[in-house]
């Protein structure tokens, strides 16, 4: 049983003691949504929030523990997104080469067969 030692009166907010996940959950995911002049893609934030739900301990503690999964997560890190794109490109290029090689061989094969028949 974890209980706060303080009672709600006089008003004392939770921010000094609340864990980061609780603060982020509210500040990012709850609260009034008003479209400001600076438009940010809310969908981006939703994605971020889902990822952030995974965060319970402080970020520092996570880093201490060697947990830095978000750095490789395309939804969280633009660097990871770039890497993902580069990887996909390389994969597609390799596939294309393989296909070209195969169709090239087939053509050769057909040509050879043609010669043999004639």
């Amino acid at each position, binding site marked *: 049983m974890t209980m*706060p030692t303080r009672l709600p*009166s006089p*008003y004392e907010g939770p921010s000094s003691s609340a864990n980061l996940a609780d603060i982020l959950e509210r*500040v990012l*995911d709850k*609260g*009034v949504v008003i479209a400001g002049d600076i*438009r940010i893609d809310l969908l981006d934030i939703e994605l971020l929030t889902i990822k952030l*739900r995974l965060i319970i301990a402080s970020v520092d*503690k996570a880093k201490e523990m060697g947990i830095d999964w978000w750095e490789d997560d395309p939804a969280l890190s633009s660097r990871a997104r770039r890497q993902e794109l580069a990887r996909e490109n390389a994969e597609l290029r390799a596939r294309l080469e393989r296909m070209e090689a195969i169709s090239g061989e087939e053509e050769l094969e057909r040509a050879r067969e043609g010669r043999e028949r004639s």
Partner: protein
Amino acid sequence: MSALRYVYALCRPFSAPLQHPLTGVGGAPARQVEHHGLVAVVSQVPEEDFAEEPLKAHLEDLDWLTATARAHQKVIDALSGVTTPLPLRLATVFRDDSGVRVMIEERKDDLRRALDRVEGRVEWGVKVYIDDRETDTAESDSPAGKATSGRDYLRQRRTRTMAHEEMWEKVEEFARRLHGTLSSHAEESRLHAPQNSVLSRASGRNVLNAAYLVARSSSEEFVELVGRTGDDTPGIRVELTGPWAAYSFTGLMEGET
């Protein structure tokens, strides 16, 4: 670089003085923009951080996000000491004061309704955890000891699985009961998605993650109620956070009225 306006909250005009000079994101002083009998609490933020592109990049930077979220929450907390603020979502940004006024003008009816709904109330967060370590320890302490044959192994595995399932059922039942009791003592309640504890196995698995809207005057009672309902069963842990501004009850989220 010019400055933009970051809006933290909306509230009714208040006369009580804030305890300390209020500072917001980046240490900038917070001030009030009053319009149509509503007050927006704003501070200036640099365009180089809060224009669309840099903001998007920042939102992926956990250190930045943490600092900004804490600064945001600090302002909301300070306001809660003197009035009942309607907290906005992180990074609600306008070009200038007149942009803020236009927003108030357009949304004033919604905002007033939402403010009435939360006036004099606070939000309490209650989470129930099942401590996986407890159940694991209980299992390894079981007299069965090491399996000596394949059949033994299967039997032990079955016993473990059943113990685990029983524990889960017990915790779920406990959470359901607790939520029922607390809901009946709150004006409104919301169930949030459980927090996933990938990063801190020590604190167990989150089974219930709920928020309750409670009148400030009944809050002491509510806190005591949570304390009394806490279960002594090993492996179950109840955590209370708050009082928060009524983040989960603003009624202006998508999909709500």
